[in-house]
């Protein structure tokens, strides 16, 4: 049985504490695919243990921006990012950043569930195993991570069966458990529910509320209702006349949706375009 708990209005969100510690601070970020500039002077101050949503129409650079935070853009040849992304004060874009360590601190959940073609246990244990943790500690962290994502009761009797037999929603929660197992501080979510049905989507959104007690979450979403439901802060992005993405407005979610300062933000959230 899945308990369905609507969170549109109910959850008391701490939107007023804009002075919470800043975990991730992006300043003057420009991003290039070859000669094409995909991001122009983007800035974002992500607060610790809050959910920050990036919204905007397709192609506005939300995902590009998100993938810079843990240097996933390094994997695409011919890309270049300038500016600063400070994680606890250290610029992750600088060349002396230990990318491997960075990615352990800043985990990621992708658009489509991408479990490894291994058993459920091995999926979650992959990170801890790689870090060389003891067997007992791995068993413990696998169980905890699966419990944190609400999967434990569903899979505890078949931990050693293939993860590919799980449903889409379960696979996505497994991927989340896998990311949590290496004990990150920040979790980047790239439209994590876009491939899921409404009930699975709701479970992910509920999980995010639980997880933000301990983790800082940045989520890219197409779905404005989702951003309004789950996030504490929202950044609205838009392409400028040269097709480069810009952050138009950023603030507490409540303000962005109810009292937008920029007319373009208002047009977007009221459905006039995008």
């Amino acid at each position, binding site marked *: 049985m899945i308990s369905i708990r609507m969170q549109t209005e109910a959850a008391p969100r701490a939107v007023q504490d804009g002075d919470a510690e800043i975990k991730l601070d992006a300043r003057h970020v420009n991003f290039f695919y070859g000669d094409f500039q995909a991001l122009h002077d983007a800035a974002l101050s992500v607060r610790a243990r809050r959910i920050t949503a990036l919204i905007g129409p397709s192609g506005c650079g939300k995902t590009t921006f998100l993938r810079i935070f843990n240097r*996933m853009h390094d*994997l695409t040849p011919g890309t270049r990012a300038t500016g600063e992304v400070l994680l606890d004060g250290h610029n992750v874009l600088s060349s002396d950043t230990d990318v491997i360590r960075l990615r*352990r601190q800043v*985990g990621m959940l*992708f658009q489509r569930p*991408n479990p*490894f*073609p291994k058993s459920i246990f091995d999926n979650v244990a*992959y990170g801890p195993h790689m870090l060389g943790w003891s067997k007992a500690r791995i068993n413990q962290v696998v169980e905890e991570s699966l419990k944190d994502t609400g999967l434990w009761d569903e899979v505890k009797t078949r931990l050693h069966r293939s993860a590919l037999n799980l449903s889409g929603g379960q696979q996505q929660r497994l991927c989340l458990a896998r990311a949590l197992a*290496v004990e990150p501080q920040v979790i980047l979510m790239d439209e994590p529910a876009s491939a899921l049905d409404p009930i699975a989507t709701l479970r992910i959104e509920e999980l995010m509320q639980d997880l933000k007690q301990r983790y800082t979450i940045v989520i890219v979403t197409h779905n404005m209702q989702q951003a309004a439901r789950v996030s504490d802060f929202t950044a609205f992005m838009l392409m400028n006349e040269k097709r480069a993405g810009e952050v138009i407005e950023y603030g507490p979610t409540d303000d962005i949706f109810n009292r937008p300062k920029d007319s373009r933000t208002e047009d977007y959230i009221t459905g006039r375009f995008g």
Partner: protein
Amino acid sequence: MAVYGIGADRGMSRPMVRILIDRFFGALIVLSVMMAAIPVLVLLLFVVIKGLPGLLTPGFFTDPPFPQGVPGGGVFNAIIGTLEIVVIGSLLAVPIGSLIGIFLSEYGRNQTGDVISDVLTGLPSIAFGIFGYTVVVLTTHHFSAISASIALAVLMLPVILRATESALLLVPQSLREAGLALGAPRWRVTLEIVVPAALGGIVTGALLAMARAAGETAPLLFTAFGNDIVQTNPFQPMGALSLTVFRNALVPYNNLQDQAWAAALLLVMLVAATNILARLYVRRSQH
């Protein structure tokens, strides 16, 4: 508008024409399949009919060849030889080939490797024999099974390399990203996630390359050379099934010609078994 008008105009006569055209192309496809399949089936049937008597002769599997003119004898030497030459060749080619394939797919991204493997694939197989002859036989001053294994290994290399590369390219990029996003170094993601996900394709490629190598004659002619004595020393000349077929088909003794047919049948069965094994493995690893 105009298109719709034409369709509506001829609407009544169209179904008949369409059905006829459909039948015609259907028949054409069946004909093409038969043209491709019949020669193969006839060949197989021929080999089975001609080879079966020899295969069922007592001693075919267990005796070494007897001198020409002496009735009886078998191909035990050649069975051992083919197995040993191919296994040693595979031990050389599979690790090197799959490592190059992994490199080209995960790290390489350049044209040079592709061009070299294409050229190697297109080379006539006797060229590999010449390679084995000049590199090993001429330097060691005698024919040997190992020189044949080396020649076959070079022949297998591009097949394995290509199979590995294309199996790895089929692994979704999202799996690599998932591993890297956990903070895994690239080499670990490659070895622990990407390669296991592609293992079915890699093993299939290796088995198909082995099957091809087992059937080759030209690379063995002046490397393994052939040997009627049963022996397993890889540094000595050695018999092989393909060599038995080649040599015995040319002599005017019935029992030896029968052996040639039977050896050909045995080779076909060996290659078919390897192919089936490869397919079964893929099917199993997909679940």
